[in-house]
Structures are given as structure tokens and as C-alpha cells.
């Protein structure tokens, strides 16, 4: 395998994993906030 190709492949995977992680974390916070808001409502 071409090392440049492998590096680029891993870099993209890492970047996507990081963004997915942030989105999932955001969704956890959002769901908690929604549950709290609906209870207050």
C-alpha cells in the first residue's frame, strides 16, 4: 500500500470520527435539555 494513501485514509477517518463524536455528545446534551424543558413545561 502507498503510505501517503494510508496516511490520508487514516486522517479522514480520524476527522470523521471526531466530528461524529462531537455530534453525539451534542445530542446527549440536547436530549437532556429537552427532557428538562418538558418537565418544567
Amino acid at each position, binding site marked *: 500500500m502507498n503510505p501517503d*494513501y494510508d496516511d490520508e*485514509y487514516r486522517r*479522514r*477517518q480520524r476527522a*470523521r470520527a471526531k466530528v461524529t463524536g462531537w455530534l453525539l455528545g451534542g445530542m446527549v446534551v*440536547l436530549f437532556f*435539555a*429537552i427532557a428538562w*424543558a418538558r418537565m418544567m413545561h
Partner: protein
Amino acid sequence: MPSPAVPITPALPAEWRDFLALTKPRVMTLVVFTALCGLLAAPVHINPILGFTAILCIAVGAGASGALNMWYEADLDARMKRTKNRPLPAGRMDRQSALHFGVALGVGSVVLMGLAINLLAAVILAVSILFYVLVYTVWLKRRTPQNIVIGGAAGAFPPLIGWAAATGRIELLPLLLFLLIFLWTPPHFWALSLFVRTDYAAAGVPMLPVVAGIQTTRRQVLIYTLPMAAAAVAPWPLGLTGAIYGVTASLLTAWFAILAVRVAVSRETDQALMKPERALFKFSILYLFVLFGALVIDRLVLA
């Protein structure tokens, strides 16, 4: 079916930016803004967290529509200058990823809207996504020059969803806002299609200037501007808004009509020299932003 110009499997996995590009962020700006205005203009106070969730669901739903549109139209996008650098025609992403992404966003946004906000808003959101994807993209766009007239309804849903999210009901004012965007879409897109018509012709999209000619399109721009003007100003005499909206709508709509008349009387056939068409297209975007902004200010002042 994808054209041979669209690679089936790209060499590398798509970047996250390509997924973001699938959601058409620029189109989403207007969707989010009009939805927010619909929500804020409603005569009911909504919890800010729930309001944020509703707008997020509408934005994600619009993103789903954009992604599914790009998934279906990859072959068409590859043939147009304006769209050939999108992730699918440029070969940066495989079609299946775009399909899965679009479906996941669409289902997620509707389910979250239903669970967190209310069923009515979720149903209208689902209808708007399905309308854009199935009625506009799959059915109308490649078949009839009336594609954007009927398809324009898809872009008219956001203020209705915003209002329904806040109140749980549909009333006359959000229906007029729906009608306004519905009638605004033809002059807006036909102005654009006049100065990019060779692009549409090359891609085989039956836009009005390609099928019926430039002069017919110019007449249609003016014809659709008249009912649009009525829908824009109507909330004021009907007592649904105050003078802030009424005066703003009257002035802006008058200027819109003047630009539409300039388009209608123009005889220019060189796309590069179509100044009235470009002016109308640019102003039509500003028009909607300012009109909806004035509506919110008016309603807040009245409240």
C-alpha cells in the same frame, strides 16, 4: 441512474465537509430564517430549548432534502457548471453514503420533532421532505417547466412548521406566509434560470426559458409577481400584522414589482448582459429576509 461521469466508488472515504456540503448550507440559511420567523411570529411563548430543537429539526430536515436531492441528481449535477463540484459529481463520495446520510437525517429530524415538539409539526416536516424529494426532485424537475411552480411549495413549509411547533395549530397568517414563499419561488428561480439557461439546457432540465423561450419566461416572472405582491401585503389589511410589517411589505414589494417589470420589458438575449434578471434574483433573496424580519419585529412590537 448515475452517468459514466459519476464514479461509483471513490478511492478515499469522503471528508466530513463533503457530508456538510450535501445539506446545502446556503439554502438552509433561508429555511432556518423563515422557520425562526414563523416560530417567533406565533402568538405563543415557546420554551427556548424547545424552540431551538424545533429549528434544529427543520434545519436537519432541510439538510436531508438537500442530501437526497444530490443523491438522485448526481448525473444531472455532473453536467452543470454550477453543480459539477458537488461531492457526488466530483467523485469525492459514493452515492450510497449520500443516500444513507439523507435518510438518516430525514428520519431523525421527523422523529425528534414528533417526540420533543408536537405531532403536527413533525407531520408537516415529513410532508415537506417527501414533497421536495419525491414530488419536485424525482417527479417534476426533469419532466415539466412547471417544476419550480409546484416544487416551490417544498420551500414554503418552514414558516408553517415554525408556527405549528410553537402553537400546535395552523392559522391564517402562517398560511399566507406559505403562499408568499410559494408565489415568490417562480420569479426568483426564473430570474436565475434566464441567465444560466444554457447550463440547464446542457443538463436537459426543462426549465421555462429552455422550453418556452426567454420572452415567455419574462412575462411569467411578472405574472407571478402580482399574486405574490397580494400575498405579501395581505396580512396588513386583514389585521394580522401592524404598520411596521405593512409599510415594509408595501415598499419592498413595490420595488420587487419594478424589478419584475424591468425583466419583463427587457429584450436582452446575451446571458452575460442580463442585468435586470441578476438584479431581481439578488433582490428577491434580500426581499424575503427583510420581509420576514419585519414580520417578527412587528409581531414583537404588537405583543
